[in-house]
């Protein structure tokens, strides 16, 4: 068994070095829509414009601070850069039913999906929420950030602006 893992690891290493220059994209994972349907994340797109994917939960205060702060200025962001924010809730069956009321209650204009089995969270290697990814127009992950402090959205917006203008960071 141990030998097998060593072999596996070595294989992984060589693959890793091959893939050093590979851009990571959004994995293909099924998440839930707010109206009970399913959605495959490989279909995430924004007509060549930047995309922000933000992991949050109804019980996570810094997550809600981040998304509420962005909500106040989101209109301006979209107008200037065409960015789209996708909020992925990792709430499980305990709080899942509260996601839509919270999102609508706060009047968020984001695309919101629920990842109750945390498949996407695992596939994107998120340790703790909030965790925010920035994707370029081709769906490549070009930047990510863990945790949130007031004002962090400005750094994110600077990156979005640069991405919208130059197509790369």
């Amino acid at each position: 068994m141990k030998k097998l893992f060593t072999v596996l690891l070595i294989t992984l290493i060589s693959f890793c070095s091959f893939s050093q220059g590979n851009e990571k994209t959004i994995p293909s994972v099924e998440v839930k829509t707010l109206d009970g349907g399913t959605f495959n994340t490989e279909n995430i797109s924004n007509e060549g414009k930047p995309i922000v994917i933000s992991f949050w939960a109804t019980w996570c205060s810094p997550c809600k601070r981040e998304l509420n702060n962005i909500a106040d200025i989101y209109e301006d962001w979209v107008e200037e850069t065409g960015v789209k924010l996708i909020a992925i809730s990792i709430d499980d069956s305990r709080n899942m039913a509260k996601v839509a009321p919270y999102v609508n209650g706060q009047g968020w204009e984001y695309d919101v999906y629920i990842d109750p089995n945390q498949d996407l969270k695992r596939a994107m290697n998120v340790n703790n929420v909030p965790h925010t990814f920035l994707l370029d127009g081709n769906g490549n992950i070009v930047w990510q950030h863990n945790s949130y402090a007031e004002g962090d959205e400005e750094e994110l917006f600077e990156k979005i602006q640069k991405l919208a203008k130059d197509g790369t960071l």
Partner: protein
Amino acid sequence: MNKQKTFYGTLKKSLFLLLIPIASNHIIAQDDESNNSNTEQNKIDAGNISGNFQVLTQFYQPDSLIGAKDVPEDVLMNGFLNLNYNRGNFSAGIRYEAYQNPLLGYPTGFKGQGIPYKYAKYSHEDIEVTAGNYYEQLGSGMIFRTYEDRNLGYDNAMEGFRVKYQPFAGVQLKGVIGKQRSYFTLGQGIVRGIDGEITINDLFKNLKEKKTKVLLGGSFVSKFQPDEDANLVLPENVGAYGGRLNIIRGGFNFMGEYVYKINDPSGDNGFIYKNGEGVLVQTTYSTKGFGLSLSAKRIDNMSFRSDRNAALTNLMINYHPALTRQHSYNLLATLYPYATQPNGEVAFQGELIYKIPKKSKLGGKYGWTILVNYSSANNIDTTGISGIDSTRQGYTSEYFSLGKVYFKDFNIELAKKFSKSFKAKLTYANIAYNKDVIQGKSGYGVIYADVVVAEMTYKFNSKNSLRTELQSLTTEQDQGDWATVLLEYSRSPHWFFAIMDQYNYGNHDPKKVLHYPTISMGYNNKATSFIITYGKQREGLFCVGGVCRAVPASNGVSLLITTSF
């Protein structure tokens, strides 16, 4: 971009070096890289590797005043590394975990290290197959849910096979079989399950455009464990089934689920032969600026584990969502949080959220947000069977009446942004908490407490801000009154610095009127964080999703390092 590449490159290499201390492998990897980095085709073919890493280390100092015991090792550590490989439709991965030894309050079963999680997954059009470890949930999880919470020390992953198949649009089938993880081994029982979900609207063409959407689902789960009991004839195969219905129309959503389990004598229910059942109903309505949710649940004898003798959070097959608000302020979240009672519980919850619009007369420039939440949980109303109970049914229960109080929480939250630089949030909660039942203690009874929290955030400028929490918990019972002050200064995007003091000023025992100060500092860069904390941690409960673990008092320095790559 180049800088970032180098950063990730260095990080990956150092992680691998840590993992396999064979220098030659590393050199080979580097050679390959230099040879192939310019060959576009190789890059695309090779797929990619990603992962994450977290280590939490704590240095302990005894403190007899707060009850922090001497830790013989002085230093304890929990850590893990996930590696995922992904190429097209194929993915595989492992998780290495090490506990040298587990942190205080963490399940001691984790002592040691190993690779308890490994999987390979292939998906093609309408089928997906997973071999190895996986996490899965059928319906709301009341008869089957395997999941992990690394911070909680909860991991009941399946090891075996899983198949997902979509024969045609609107129908989704799942099958699972395997054994469950129990620390670094597997439980004895074998768990099998199937699930089907139908989206009615996708089945028939003329229903597709209908505003009302209907989903139907059903599952069957069974476990096998040999009967090795000398006195009782125990069922070796225990089956459970469930059905669910979801109706959605516009902002309205109704979800109902019923589950049933045949007799399953276990350590949890005192080896009675009664069947178990549960029902969960949730309704929500929301529109812009308004959200309402109502839920009700009743469970009776629904503990379901793949080992009938297991205890604590070990080898649970199912999950019972707690219908209470999951608070995040420290006193509310860690002193009196509710944990679900799988043996029997009737629970209700209602939550209303309303946003007074901005630029309205009442709302002012930025508007207000109001959240009102009420939840309650009681025991089911049971009557023990006295005299001859030859079939060992244990008790009978009255369906529509309530037993003793487990938990009640009425809370209201007002949030308002006053200006570009200042916002505040005020929370009030009134709590009733049956400490004897929820924490398995005796002599405390039901504790009644009032909690008030004022949170204020002031932004000095776009990068610098100060967040303050003033919390008060008052009660005549248990440890008496508590107050917490938190000051958190953050300098975006990299630094934060925080001081917190919890003060048990109302303790009836003058020797226990104590301060619990902590000071912490953190640095974040991209997907990497470092947090160092020094101070005293009071005894409390750490809960995620209604599952709790007790954290003992401790004193010392801790360092958390976490990254994703």
